[in-house]
């Protein structure tokens, strides 16, 4: 259990005291007379949000602030729950190499991937499930202020190199100390279909798929053997396998699937795996809304929409299927929303957080209702990663992560006025605003 979680329980048990305590040393913050989009509850045309001690203390049309509160006049502003980047590398200092299955970008370089000459599954090639983003995030990542300026307050950050790359964490995008950034340290395992290009097994797609299978079979066996050994201390110990521990520990697993055939393959394959499946990529998901819905799979749509080479050969005639994907990929979120697939967005491979927001706008233009876009980036993401009890909506008792804009989100004219993270107001600096636009 995290500190943050304990905090919540503490606050709950000490409810009468909560209103007066200022655990983070900041005065209460009241944003008043603003339009509020709480997500999960009807919008309030004119209301106020009161933040005390890093949590939302009150939301409504009539909220009175305790004496000494910092007051922000919200006239003309809209308050959203803090936007969550549903799959990213934010906070990880060195930008992790992007998996080609995540964003159609080049696969991880040999130098970056944990390469070993492996002979088979027993060597656990490209498998580092013990790597945790929570252990590696830093407040010093230069992209954090950019992300805040674009309206993001939270990110789900994953290590991304290797077949079992490691475990992701939900982090808030501002804190004094790194330890305070982490909201939930282990929310899932990130997998790719990387081949072992340093040499050795697996060196092909079929090898990687066979390896995924073998590893899950091994993991289940390991879990059972460990349970039996625990009950029967006289039996030989099954041994400790750190690779399998991490795989079993992860509450859900992210698998790559960009094209329709990849989605089909993953839907079939992951049925065999003893883990909750989340697919990421999904650029051709517009063809598979029904199938994904029926399978009850949650999805993370990558916001780096496929695009042509900027400096391409003018005489190059591109294949119809490439053009079609390029044209229709942004319609995927709309299709998923209509089919009832729970989804959020990933910014891996996207140039900047601001570009990610613009990419969401393209999805809206291609048929995603604005409200669904907001939901996908707030409560939807929180639900997918199991943190909706703390994040994702403007509700009394939730972490005070807010995104305050002038104008509706995702419009060209929208300006992010400020964000509130853990109750602390962060104004975009001038250059960050300029850079993000």
């Amino acid at each position, binding site marked *: 259990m995290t500190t943050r979680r304990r905090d919540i329980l503490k606050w709950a048990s000490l409810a009468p005291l909560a209103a007066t305590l200022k655990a983070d040393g900041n005065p209460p913050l009241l944003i008043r007379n603003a339009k509020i989009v709480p997500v999960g509850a009807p919008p309030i045309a004119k209301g106020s949000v009161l933040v005390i001690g890093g949590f939302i203390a009150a939301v409504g049309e009539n909220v009175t602030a305790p004496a000494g509160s910092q007051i922000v006049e919200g006239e003309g502003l809209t308050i959203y729950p803090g936007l969550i980047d549903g799959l990213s590398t934010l906070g990880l200092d060195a930008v992790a190499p992007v998996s080609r299955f995540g964003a159609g970008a080049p696969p991880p370089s040999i130098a970056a991937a944990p390469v070993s000459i492996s002979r088979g599954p027993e060597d656990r090639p490209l498998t580092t499930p013990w790597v945790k983003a929570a252990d590696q995030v830093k407040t010093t990542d230069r992209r954090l202020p950019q992300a805040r300026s674009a309206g993001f307050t939270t990110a789900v950050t994953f290590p991304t190199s290797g077949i079992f790359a490691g475990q992701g964490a939900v982090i808030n995008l501002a804190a004094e100390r790194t330890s305070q950034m982490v909201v939930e340290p282990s929310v899932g395992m990130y997998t790719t279909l990387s*081949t072992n290009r340093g040499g050795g097994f697996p060196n092909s797609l079929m090898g990687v798929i066979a390896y995924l299978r073998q590893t899950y079979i091994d993991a289940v066996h390991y879990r059972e053997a460990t349970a039996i050994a625990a009950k029967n201390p006289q039996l030989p110990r099954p041994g400790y396998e750190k690779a399998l521990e991490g795989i079993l520990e992860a509450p859900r697993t992210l698998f790559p699937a960009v094209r329709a055939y990849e989605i089909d393959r993953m839907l079939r394959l992951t049925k065999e795996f003893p883990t909750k499946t989340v697919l990421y990529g999904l650029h051709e998901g517009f063809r598979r809304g029904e199938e994904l819905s029926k399978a009850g799979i949650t999805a993370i749509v990558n916001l780096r929409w496929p695009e042509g*080479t900027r*400096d*391409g*050969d003018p*005489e*190059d005639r591109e*294949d119809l299927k490439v053009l079609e994907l390029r044209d229709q990929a942004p319609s995927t979120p709309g299709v998923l929303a209509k089919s009832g697939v729970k989804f959020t967005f990933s910014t891996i491979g996207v140039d900047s957080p601001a570009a990610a927001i613009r990419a969401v706008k393209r999805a809206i233009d291609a048929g995603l209702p604005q409200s669904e876009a907001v939901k996908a980036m707030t409560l939807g993401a929180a639900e997918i990663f199991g943190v909706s009890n703390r994040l994702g909506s403007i509700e009394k008792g939730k972490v005070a992560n807010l995104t305050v804009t002038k104008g509706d989100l995702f419009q060209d004219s929208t300006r992010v006025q400020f964000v509130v993270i853990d109750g602390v107001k962060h104004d975009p600096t001038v250059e960050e605003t300029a850079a993000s636009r």
Partner: protein
Amino acid sequence: MRTSLLLLLATTLFANEKDSFFMKGVTLFPVASPKVENTTLLVVDGKIADIGLKSAPKGVRVIDGKGLQVYPGIINSATNIGLSEISSIRETNDTGELGDFNPQLRAIVAINPETEHIPVVRANGISTVITLPGGGGGFGGGGAGIIMGQAALIHLDGYTYEEMEINRTAAYQMRFPTMSSRSFDFDTFQTTRGSFADAKRRFDTQMAEINKFFAEARAYMTAKNAKTPGLKVNVRYEAMIPLFEGKAPVMITASKKREILAAIQFAEAQKIKLILADVRDPGSAVEDIAKKKIPCILGPVTQLPPEADAPYDFNYALPGQLHKAGVKFAFGSFANQFARNIAFEAASASAYGLPYEEALKAITLNAAEIWGVGDKYGSIEKGKYADLLVTNGDPLEVKTDVKMLFIQGRQQSLESKHTRLYDKYRLRPN
């Protein structure tokens, strides 16, 4: 002259001449003229001496060709025969010397007369091939040069390359730089697109190198012609002289419109004779090719279209379109693996718009004319060499059997590694 001598000494000579015979009862398909049914053919000393003689001159070997059909020997206008045995085994490849400019390299001197490819190819009625010094597969050393050497026109018969030779400098093989920004990524197994500006820069750099080499070679020729004292012999420049003098053409590989137009422009600027090779996707450049009467060597048509969305018959239909536009072309396989199937490439094209006669011409007379030997080869005419293919049917038809093949009147064995293995395994007890 020899023929007149023979007329005098017919009785004594005919019996011993291996390259003289009288064939009767055949249907002739001379290519240059309409077919002649149930006729005879007299070959004397390797040349066609007469057509339609009622009876054989005394002493001449008589071959009964009743019901058979006679065509000119087939010419494959691009192979590596004699230079490459198995393209993927480096040790068996003599193509693709290192270095960008190697006009002095002559494919003919490297030809191995004992290559297994010769009998295999011959068995399908091919009497003559162009052997290119540059490799198609890229396994023969460098292979990425610009002027790769001199292509040789050879007969598929002879103990030495001298005996096989028809023209040792049939053309200079040149690979034109491409402006392609596409490359194949073996990791994703997909075509990736790089920067076009970079591709253009590479193209300009290479073109500058080419123009520099040509300018230097020309300066050398001028100096040589002026008998400049103390001029140091440079074999590379020396080898360019026949090209500049118009005695041999340059065969430039250029598949797409942009490269084709650039190649035409280059040849015009250099005032050299041009043959375009491996034309695949010429687009509107077809008009330029036709207008300027540039002969083309087409690659195999039985392969995938150049792009995923191109019509399935893109390659099959191209020869027909070129013919319609008035372009003269021949077929070449640009590799050894399927060199024996060249007639079927023409056949596929004939099923997609190329008139049958033209398909036949493309692998016989057109090829001979393009390679500058149309007066001696490529059709069945009096006075031409007797490179003859005798079949029981249409040679463009897969099921047709090749019954005999003559090269300059000498009957060839149709046995090959394929037939030897066939015979061996047919006799296997179980």
